[in-house]
């Protein structure tokens, strides 16, 4: 599998994703500078977390205008899997690949902690190694993770089974108390119509190593490597 990680000025989880991909794939992804519109042919594009352009103006808004992002959108429309994590999710909504927006956390504070997620869709290259309804524990670390979309959009996401992850209790109950940021319908991650673009606020790359306190994020990278190795 050949993967590319898009590096914007202010990306800061690019290395973390690089490490997770290397661990699962056995080879390094391409670290691709945002200003270079010539994106090589790859099987997977990752838009990592961080504070692209300092999150000035609006999280992800400036990075969505980077030369490479036009190419990312084109590839996504051709079916290339695109994974946006945290700031990457924000960029994917800002560039229109995913619907809705990420607003400031309801508590108005940055929040970094492990959260429980219920896996809601497993028929994707990102989530195929999870079991439907599985509860996984990985961290969030964000200031703007409060997912919002109008009711029609939310109904369509639900109706088309495009919610990939929801914040939940350790037992899997989707409650307001287990929603860290006020996201609509406890949404932590969503898919595009083609199911080849996933945006999520939690960080699977941060708990893919037992030494760091958990490995629930690892199946995402293992699954991608398996799926995309077969495809290639």
């Amino acid at each position: 599998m050949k993967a590319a990680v898009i590096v914007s000025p202010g990306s800061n989880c690019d290395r973390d994703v690089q490490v997770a991909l290397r661990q699962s794939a056995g080879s390094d992804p391409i670290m691709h500078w945002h200003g270079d519109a010539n994106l090589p042919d790859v099987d997977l594009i990752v838009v990592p977390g961080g504070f692209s352009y300092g999150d000035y103006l609006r999280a992800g808004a400036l990075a969505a205008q980077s030369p490479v992002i036009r190419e990312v959108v084109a590839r996504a429309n051709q079916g290339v899997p695109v994974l946006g994590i945290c700031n990457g999710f924000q960029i994917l909504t800002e560039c229109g690949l995913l619907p809705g927006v990420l607003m400031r956390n309801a508590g108005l504070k940055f929040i970094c902690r492990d959260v429980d997620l219920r896996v809601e869709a497993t028929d994707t290259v990102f989530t195929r190694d999870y079991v439907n309804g599985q509860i996984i524990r990985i961290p969030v670390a964000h200031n703007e993770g409060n997912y919002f979309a109008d009711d029609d959009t939310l109904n369509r996401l639900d109706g088309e089974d495009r919610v990939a992850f929801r914040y939940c209790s350790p037992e899997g109950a989707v409650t307001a108390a287990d929603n860290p940021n006020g996201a609509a319908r406890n949404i932590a991650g969503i898919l595009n119509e083609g199911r080849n673009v996933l945006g999520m606020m939690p960080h699977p790359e941060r708990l893919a190593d037992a030494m760091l306190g958990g490995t629930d994020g690892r199946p995402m990278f293992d699954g991608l490597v398996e799926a995309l190795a077969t495809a290639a």
Partner: protein
Amino acid sequence: MNETTPTITPEIVAEHGLTPEEYERVLRIMGREPKMTELGIFSVMWSEHCSYKSSKFWLKKLPTEAPWVICGPGENAGVIDIGDGKACIFKMESHNHPSFIEPYQGAATGVGGIMRDVFTMGARPVANMNALRFGAPEHPKTRHLVSGVVAGIGGYGNCMGIPTVGGEMNFDPSYNGNILVNAMTVGIADQDKIFYSAAAGLGNAVVYVGSKTGRDGIHGATMASAEFDDDSEDKRPTVQVGDPFTEKLLLEACLELMATDAIIAIQDMGAAGLTSSSVEMSDKGGVGIEFDLDQVPVREEAMTPYEIMLSESQERMLMVVKPGREDMARAIFEKWELDFAIIGRVTDTNRLVLKSGGEVVCDIPVPPLVAEAPEYERPWVPTPPSPVLAAADALAGIDISPTEALAKLVASPDLCSRRWVWEQYDHMVMGDTVRRPGGDAAIVRVHGTDRALAITTDCTPRYCVADPVQGGRQAVAEAWRNLTASGAKPLAITDNMNFGNPERPEIMGQFAGCIEGMTEACLALDFPVVSGNVSLYNETNGTGILPTPAIGGVGLIEDVNDDLTGTGFAARDDAIVVIGDTAGHLGRSMLLRVFSDSQSDAGAPPPVDLDAERRNGDFVRDLIVNGRVSACHDVSDGGILVAIAEMALSGGIGADILPPDTGMPALAWLFGEDQARYIVTSNAPDDLLAAAKSAGIPAIVVGTTGGAVLTMGDGNSISLSDLRNAHESWLPDYMAVV
């Protein structure tokens, strides 16, 4: 300020914080009346903040050497050898005055400044820590300050993508008008890629990179060198404004350039900005520097040389670049969308020469500017000793069961959970945070290796005020103990000396006492000081803070897979063992602070026996490294029972505690704060006790892990869930009040 100001009046001299004697010295060095820019440069370079004029005499006494020390105090940060050709570069620095005036920006730029100190030496920062002191919780400004400082620290570190992995926070009324914000950064570099600040090479380009220079922070260093009064709010314009995004770009651009061989010298622009960076580079290199100030990238029009030289705009660096490498260096900074300007050259004159509009506006001989900076051996008086309180006297009037006392102590401002704070810090980015905040020390893996650094910040100011010598010892010993309890070999410290007005002999007495105690502890524990910072004049209207020598300690874990033991109880039916002597010392204890009306913050602090510290700690570390204990925690504020409660909460396992029959009051045994103690758990306690006995180490079994309750035998018990609620709720509840 106007460049054409004709004469320097005594008023102008006083406004610049220089005494008449100091100004006489300026006249002697210059051989003429200084121009305004020159006066400004003398003013900031000779400020307490930059010159350490009151503290230098004492700082020289601190031990700074060990075989693993690569660079001690004097550079931007200290450097130690951590094996495999890697170096750990670290320092702690205060941003107290600005954080009180404008908490978000003050704290944020404190974090930004200390990170620059570390990456200017070639290290990638891998962890941030902090030591925070606030006023009484009931003081009307405290909430606002806590909220702003925490958000500011998080705002800067989170954006940079450097994890903030731990710290400490205390409340005391003495900080009502002077909070302390001490920020520490730890970085890792290759030993053959460490950068220093000595300029060299006649004619080489001096390059300015980073943000443009604005009018912010002018005279910040001078502001931080004076007491506050009722008008301190008016000093807000002296606080800088941070831009962590630009600093992230600066970090990546500098590290990219450092991977080449283009840099001869590099120095960040911190306090006193372009002035102190250029003076340090030329002084250390024994050369002169000449600038054309018209080339300095500026944010505003018509900035005077005085303003350019004294601005403390953030996110800027000064470098000397090898001839022929300028274009390559420029390309890297342009890629990162940062300013890159050749603003001057290295000369052989030993003078700092500044030109503006073709005119020389400053021409100062650098060696006397640095070497003849004032140094004072200020008068001092030792702190009078406090009486040692007998346990029975200390406990007079306190009628409370141990579990009631515990529930209230773990919910007290100084001992409650700091989760509300550290959940606002990204403590996991970079993917190497092995031990997250909340334990004895944070543990951060050295990327791509099995080694790890243990990091802690510690100080107990209520001990220091009662007995500065014991308090100084204790601060160093507790840092050493926290690293030891994590299984690390303690290597070195950075110190952040926060005190009141040094012109008062009793304050200098506190300073001298703390230095004496720290020196003794550093020597006894092979734990040298490699970097540090002094913040004086933490006073408002003549009332000083508690003396607060904050210690940042770094230790090494050789193999993070094997040598790690957690703080939390790890298994049921393990024996709970106290290592070290328990005498039931209650003077200055948290128990008295929370429960005693008459003896709150009274008495002598617990004495620190450095031989016992060393023996007990070395013994405990061996147990951990050899896998003979299942959990370990040091005993500090709140004594044995608070330590056991923290281990129970962390592991989610209760304990049955059986205090030994010692004859001392139960509350003294449970809550006394005797030093040099640890709690460990083991499933083979007999072996452990035998090993302790043969090593001459006091060790005693005091209970067993298990269940979901802490019990003390006679039906005196509390559930972990009640304890957790008490521990977790105080801070969020307090901060939720609008």
